[in-house]
């Protein structure tokens, strides 16, 4: 189960993601992030309360980042919880995504 909330802070559209980003939630996650990217020049995905991310969830984040790259928008991932950071580290996503400890705004 995933919970998605959005707010705007200092020019950044922040999409906060809680719960589990697995195959069941991947479509909703990708749709929310893509929609934020399409409507905003700067988008941050806040994963501070995300408990788990599977390969399907990671693909959703990567494809949202791809959409941002194609549009020339800024896309950042922030506040990774320990289990999610482990997955990001193993996948080497820091080579592909802007990852911040805190929100950039």
């Amino acid at each position: 189960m995933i919970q998605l909330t959005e707010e705007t802070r200092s020019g950044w559209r922040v999409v906060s993601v809680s719960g589990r980003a697995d195959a069941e939630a991947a479509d909703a996650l990708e749709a929310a992030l893509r929609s934020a990217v399409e409507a905003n020049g700067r988008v941050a995905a806040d994963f501070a309360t995300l408990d788990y991310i599977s390969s399907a969830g990671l693909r959703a984040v990567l494809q949202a980042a791809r959409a941002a790259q194609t549009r020339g928008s800024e896309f950042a991932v922030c506040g990774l919880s320990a289990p999610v950071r482990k997955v990001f580290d193993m996948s080497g996503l820091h080579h592909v995504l802007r990852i911040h400890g805190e929100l950039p705004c």
Partner: protein
Amino acid sequence: MLEEVVLLAVDETSGGLRSTREFGTAYALVGAVFFDLALARKIDTGTEAIHILDPGPTGSATLDRVLAAMAQRGDLTTVRQWIDEIFHRRDDLEGEALASLIRQGILRHEKSKRLWIIDVERFPMVDNRPQQDVRLRLAEAILSDIIPDTRDIMLVSIAEPCGLLGYVLTGMQLAARRQRIQMLCNLETISRKVADAINALDATLHQGIPRMM
């Protein structure tokens, strides 16, 4: 994914099959099957574990057979265990993908004899556009700095351990983009575990070869 990689292994001029690293290719084709199951939303993976999401049929006999095997073996829970399990079953994944490509009218099958006794099989292209498409997608994924489509990330990470990228790009291009290829190969759990399996097998084989004095 499985069919795309096998199609890439067909020499477009002779119709011969390029198998450069036999065990590596066999492991990578198992990885391609798991990618196909993931794309069909039948499985999902964590950093180690593999989960069945839906055991229902996919329409592909190969995928359905692997999915049915997974549903029956609850004792095997990790990606690595399943890669080894399917590898050791020695299913003819390459042959099944070739048969499907022939049915789709992309390849045709020719049999002949060399020196009157050795059977030679060739798979000349009937329609070379699908292979061209695979080659273009691979080249773009590797040479550009844009994050590739999910399918193209998977394709790079399977074509690399099969030793097939050398048929798409020059040695100089591959050398210049080695870091990007490694980065793409590392993104997915399935391809990381395929690489682990190949490395473990290589280590075992090297231990079995006596050191020359």
